[in-house]
């Protein structure tokens, strides 16, 4: 009798993640086209319009890249945590708490130098994100509580806190009853570098390099990989696995918190529910598609930023913006399936 069995491939092409992303993206465009066809829209026209309106001019390109900033930063945070084989589903909450921390500090402090002020506020955002993941981190390393559940749940808690603040203590009387905090002053707006592109994008490049160093070049990254591979090996090697997991979680949360700070200081300029439009969740897709590689997260983050700008502008021709969500999600699906075939091969074996 013959049976089909899976075998792990001896060596995996280094670019396999990239190829699976490309194939996944093609599959996603194909699925998107079918959905457009069902709605009697011409896919070629629609996609070329999306392309033109998301990267066709300095203005649209800079909007796209601005959208990419939170995706990239939160995605990097997720990838750092993944070095210890932990999943961060709480980037969304961390983004919000980062923004809340920024606003809190803004309200309660005075600085003479705007540069220093912005700098301090960005650090506050990072700290806010770390604070958000502190409880999941403690419960993880002390009690072994599954971090997927706790980080997910903190999203709801933080969202509740946000709603409370913008309807209560922080509510802006000038906002015509729209639930939002007061705008921050123009002196702390992040400067733009070209077109509408904010300085946040440079921070993003810097942090991509930082994450790459931390994950792939540093001793800490090595210790995280060993601890993630096997806690017993870590103990055997004298590596404190819990400590590495704890620090990785705080850094991961901090990256997402920084995204919230940049979003507040460069885009919304005030705390409202609009601080994040699901960036924390899309960031999971971005990180997963790239196999948790910082450079890949940067590139795919940019692409996904452009996709969501493209998605919002094609609403003007009567196509739902959800088409870009569908493409993002199907890319992940396609890429994961293709990655499977890069990792395993299927062989016929004789039954014993």
């Amino acid at each position, binding site marked *: 009798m013959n049976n089909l069995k899976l075998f792990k491939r001896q*060596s995996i092409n280094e670019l396999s993640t990239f190829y699976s992303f490309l194939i996944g993206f093609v599959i996603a465009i194909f699925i998107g086209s079918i959905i457009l066809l069902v709605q009697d829209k011409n896919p070629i026209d629609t996609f070329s319009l999306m392309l033109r309106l998301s990267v066709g001019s300095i203005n649209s390109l800079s909007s796209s890249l601005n959208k990419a900033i939170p995706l990239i930063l939160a995605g990097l945070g997720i990838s750092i945590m993944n070095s210890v084989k932990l999943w961060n589903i709480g980037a969304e909450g961390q983004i919000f708490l980062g923004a809340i921390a920024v606003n809190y500090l803004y309200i309660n402090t005075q600085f003479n130098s705007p540069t220093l002020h912005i700098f301090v506020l960005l650090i506050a955002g990072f700290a806010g994100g770390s604070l958000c993941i502190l409880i999941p981190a403690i419960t993880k390393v002390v009690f072994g509580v599954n971090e997927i559940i706790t980080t997910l749940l903190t999203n709801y808690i933080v969202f509740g806190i946000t709603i409370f603040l913008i309807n209560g203590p922080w509510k802006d009387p000038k906002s015509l009853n729209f639930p939002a905090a007061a705008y921050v002053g123009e002196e702390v707006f992040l400067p733009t570098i070209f077109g509408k592109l904010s300085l946040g994008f440079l921070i993003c490049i810097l942090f991509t390099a930082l994450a790459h160093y931390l994950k792939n*070049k540093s*001793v800490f990254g090595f210790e995280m*990989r060993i601890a*993630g591979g*096997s806690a017993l090996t*870590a103990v055997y090697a004298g590596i404190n696995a819990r400590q590495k997991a704890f620090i990785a979680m705080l850094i991961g949360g901090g990256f997402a918190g920084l995204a919230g700070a940049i979003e507040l200081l460069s885009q919304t300029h005030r705390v409202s529910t609009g601080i994040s439009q699901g960036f924390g969740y899309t960031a999971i897709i971005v990180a997963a598609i790239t196999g948790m590689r910082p450079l890949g997260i940067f590139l795919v983050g940019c692409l996904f930023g452009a996709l969501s700008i493209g998605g919002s502008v094609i609403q003007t021709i009567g196509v739902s913006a959800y088409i870009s969500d569908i493409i993002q999600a199907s890319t992940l699906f396609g890429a994961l399936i293709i990655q499977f075939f890069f990792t395993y091969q299927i062989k016929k074996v004789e039954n014993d």
Partner: protein
Amino acid sequence: MKQYILEAKNISKSFGNVRALEDVNFYLEKGIIHGLLGENGAGKSSLMNVLSGIYQPEKGSIFVNNIKQTNLNPEYASELGIGMVHQEFRLIESFSIQDNLTLSKSNIYRDDFKNAFEKYSEIFSLSVNPEKTISELSVGEKQKIEIMKLIFNNSSIMLLDEPTAVLTPQETDQLKNSLKRLSEEDEKTIVLISHKLKEIREFTETVFVMKNGEMVAENLLTENVTDNNLIELMMGHIKKSVIDKSNKVGDAKLNIKSVEYVDKVNNYKLLDNINFEIKAGEILGIAGVSGNGQVELANIISGIQVDYSGEIFINGQDVSGKGVKSRKKLNLSYIPENRLGVGLAPGVSILDNSIVKDYFKTRRGPHLSKTKTKTYLENLINTFSIKAPDSKAEISTLSGGNMQKLLMGRELISKPEVIIASQPTRGLDVNAVEAIHNLLVDQRDGGSAILLISEDLDELFKLSNRLLVMYEGKIVKSFDINNADINNVGLAMAGVIE
């Protein structure tokens, strides 16, 4: 002719090129406790798996109540009343005791659960509420429930694969009485696999002995056979050592003084008053069936386990209270029994795994030098002739032998003064075993003090200068290798000490 409730004739079974069972005969009398004795890998578990329908033999026939059974599968075997308790528990942890016991469709006490549970709780000296979930039970209680499950499934033939391995001496005593009562009152036919002669002697009426997949003794009356006979059957003859043992021996490098380690949960001494020393250029072998404290001993010396009492000196320095890292700095290497999972981290690259011991040497500040790391691995690959084509590939892409060579190489390259090698050749092919033995002898000649923990007596006799036998957490006997007799070692391993 005697009537047998179960008879297996000329059973053969192989896995790939490995012969697990060769022409094995086995037969059971109703209402009697039979012992099945043999070293690890002798084929005892394979035979049990054939009888319970899990493995299909290539040759041979099985008769249950004189009816020939073809196509025996687990479901059908259980209908025929053959039940097996495996070495690992097969209970559903999150279910209650009652649900676990009444799970199977061949259950006979579904309607009368309460009375039956009371009756057998008494026989097994078990006092727990059947509503309790399995995960709340102690290991000993779980083992009792496992055996009770066979009774509830109406098994008349109970195959127990090393049920006492996880039990404390008191629990083993209780089990003995329970099994005796089951065989007398319920006429259960029982097969008990064990390594311990004492248990075979106390539990069983007749005994079978296996060696290398063959049945070397059938149905001996336990009371008529001597311990020496059994050991000789089990161990056979051993090749005499070919390695020169006249190398120079230096000062003591490792001293262990009255080390004790207590399992706090069961308040049970896993290590009891361990004393020994190893000199430079000496290999000290520790013989013993696994689970007699060897893993704990290795973990304590290497610093993984620090809550022991007693003293340990490495190179004359007291290391009590010191962790893994500071002991490594004293040039101690540990080759753990569990290759993949402890010694090597699965899912992590070969490159990363190669520097687990010495990564502080390949670092530059907070930075891990790529060139240094690569050179380090290349050096390992060349020195120890490891076949590792792609250093970025996961460690699990290597063969077992190459994995072990990488692990040994990593631990040995720095010429350690003290080496703990735990089961270094388990599961490897002949060539890899030879290579690993040579590595250890080279280290010995270089002046290392080596603690070799193994279950393989051939290996221990070949490599060791001296031999200690561990049994139930104690060192029960010590041999100089030139005067050591394999049968005496075997007796000590099985817990017989004159």
